[in-house]
């Protein structure tokens, strides 16, 4: 128990080295397992990984592509991280992103005469509100009724998925279009592009949010309470905090961030609502938050890593024939290794104890 407390206060208050070393070990092991697969296909793993690197980071064209993929991963990663700080597993980021995207489209295709910064702000806020409202349901059920949030968010992801599909083929469908998609957003709701590339200003939002959350969890009472609510809700309750209300709010804010992430994708990348624009983003976000060891600034780096994997995979496929979907295996292995190596000290302690018990009969 004492160990646990020290650990949790550790990564909230100062840099800890295991928080940096563990993810690196995970990445190295994950890439090694990937190398075995590449080698089994008769390709030199170093070759393949070189093309992966070249296609993702080594030129401005590829780097900007990577950064475009990094933005939604970082924003949803932060959404997942936010609730996970209180030990609430929001696997509903996927659904909240969809609701946010719907909200973004409703505001983004209207109000052509509002100045751009205000319009973008309106879109973000409304999308966030829809995402937050969607997350309120599992949050409330978890805090007040004790119903497992993992189950509820998982079910709600599908409700959101089909709801979006219905909206984009119904009320928001572009008239006379063959495709299930909305009309384009008005110009004032499109995120400005940076440096003449596809990279949009959403990257700034992600960085600012990560810095803010880093400060928030280190320096504010609310941030501290949130972490405490996950580790020892009873103590917090006796200290006079309304824990149920706090946990519900945590989920709502997490949903707000995810909803806004959906809005950034719509405003920055697609420019209109389309079906299935972010399948699996909510699950990737869990990987991002875990690889970052739940550090908000770390999320930027781990999102960059996963964004680079996804982007570089294309040039790896063209040059070596290793399929793009290969990177999902690497992503999964990285997560397994990171989490396993984090648990390792405890596991070793358990098995040592068991051996001692056996020896002493």
């Amino acid at each position, binding site marked *: 128990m004492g160990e646990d407390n020290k650990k949790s206060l550790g990564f909230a208050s100062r840099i800890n080295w295991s928080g940096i070393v563990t993810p690196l070990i995970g990445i190295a092991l994950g890439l090694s397992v990937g190398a075995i*697969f590449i080698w089994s*296909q008769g390709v030199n793993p170093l070759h393949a990984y070189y093309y992966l690197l070249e296609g993702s980071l080594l030129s401005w064209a590829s780097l900007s592509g990577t950064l475009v993929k990094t933005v939604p991963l970082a924003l949803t990663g932060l959404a997942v991280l936010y609730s996970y700080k209180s030990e609430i*597993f929001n*696997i509903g980021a996927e659904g909240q992103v969809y609701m946010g995207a719907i909200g973004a489209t409703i505001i983004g295709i209207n109000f052509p005469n509002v100045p751009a910064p205000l319009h973008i702000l309106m879109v973000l806020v409304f999308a966030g509100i829809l995402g937050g409202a969607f997350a309120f*349901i599992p949050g409330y*059920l978890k805090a007040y*009724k*004790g*119903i*497992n949030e*993992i*189950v*509820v968010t*998982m*079910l*709600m992801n*599908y*409700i959101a998925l*089909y*709801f979006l*599909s*219905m909206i984009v*083929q*119904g009320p928001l469908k572009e008239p006379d279009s063959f495709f299930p998609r909305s009309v384009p957003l008005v110009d004032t709701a499109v995120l400005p592009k940076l440096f003449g590339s596809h990279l949009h200003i959403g990257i700034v939002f992600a960085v600012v949010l990560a810095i803010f959350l880093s400060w928030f969890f280190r320096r504010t009472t609310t941030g501290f309470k949130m972490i405490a609510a996950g580790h020892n809700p009873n103590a917090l309750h006796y200290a006079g905090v309304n824990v149920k209300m706090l946990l519900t709010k945590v989920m709502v804010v997490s949903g707000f961030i995810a909803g806004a992430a959906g809005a950034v994708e719509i405003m920055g990348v697609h420019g209109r609502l389309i079906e299935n624009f972010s399948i699996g983003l909510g*699950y990737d976000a*869990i*990987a991002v938050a*875990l690889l970052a060891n739940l550090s908000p600034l770390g999320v930027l780096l781990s999102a960059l890593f996963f964004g680079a994997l996804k982007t570089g995979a294309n040039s790896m496929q063209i040059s070596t*024939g*290793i*399929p793009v*979907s*290969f*990177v*999902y*295996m*690497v*992503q*999964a*292995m990285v*997560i*397994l290794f990171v*989490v*396993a190596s984090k*648990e390792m000290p*405890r*596991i070793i302690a*358990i098995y040592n*104890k*068991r051996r001692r*018990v056996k020896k002493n009969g």
Partner: protein
Amino acid sequence: MGELASVIFTAEFLGNSLRFATPLILAAMGGVVNERTGVLNLGMDGMMLIGAFSAFAGSYFTGNAWMGVLIAVISCLLIGLLHAFCTVTLVMNQVVVAVAINTFSMGLASSLLRTLFGTSTSALRSPGFENIAWPQALQDLPFFGPVLFQQTIFVYIAILAVPTIWWVFFKSTWGLSIRAVGEYPKAAETMGVSVTKVRYLALLFAGAMGGLSGAALSITGLNTFIDNMTAGRGFIAFACIIFGRFHPVGAGLGALMFGLAQGLQLRIQTVGIPMPYQIPIMFPYIITIVLLVAMGSGSVPAGWGTPYYPDEE
């Protein structure tokens, strides 16, 4: 309204719904066993995906659909073993492991599809299962013929699996161990039941059923594999278990409900009824959440989702 109902609720519709429900029932029967031992297994979708792929690939290369099933079951046993090793032996977070397994399975199945079969897979067909050759008289029965006697063997395996699992749960000592481990692992351990062993076996069983379920998707008619073929059916199977309050019969009924919803969606699209086809598919999810709220948190096995640390105070 009556006219509309007679257009929708035909024997063909019910037969299709039963066919749609079959992979869900198979997966849910595997899942309900491991959920009852206290392991939250959201990795069923990955298991089904690997099952669907290896059933197709196995059947394609051996030329025998039964070999495909066998290979699917073996592959999924390996995935179940990985899940068990991570969640039971390494005591890792069960949701994280499931997310990783689903991601890994998606990557592995798509990659192997491309490396083994090249890029144009549309024309590739493997041997598959036909409908069982019941006597023509049975097949021609009005109503019951299309629903019950024009189906593949998987439908009957699924229907038989429900009472079998029920029997194991409530009439056998295995069932007692399974339930004890899920409700109160410490007590089970004191009774001499190994929590580790029971959870391993349950996850392996879930893997085997996931393999069958995947085979029921890929080699019963389509006889091919496409990326993301399960389309979240493993998660639906999980929802069925929740809907059925962790009871095999309830889970089976849940699978039927989801099957009917899918059949209804297809019917709406083919008959051209002016209603968004998404509404019937959304409906079962909403019902499951409402039921979850109505029954409260008490219906979940007490040890569910919490890792068991042997010998830890």
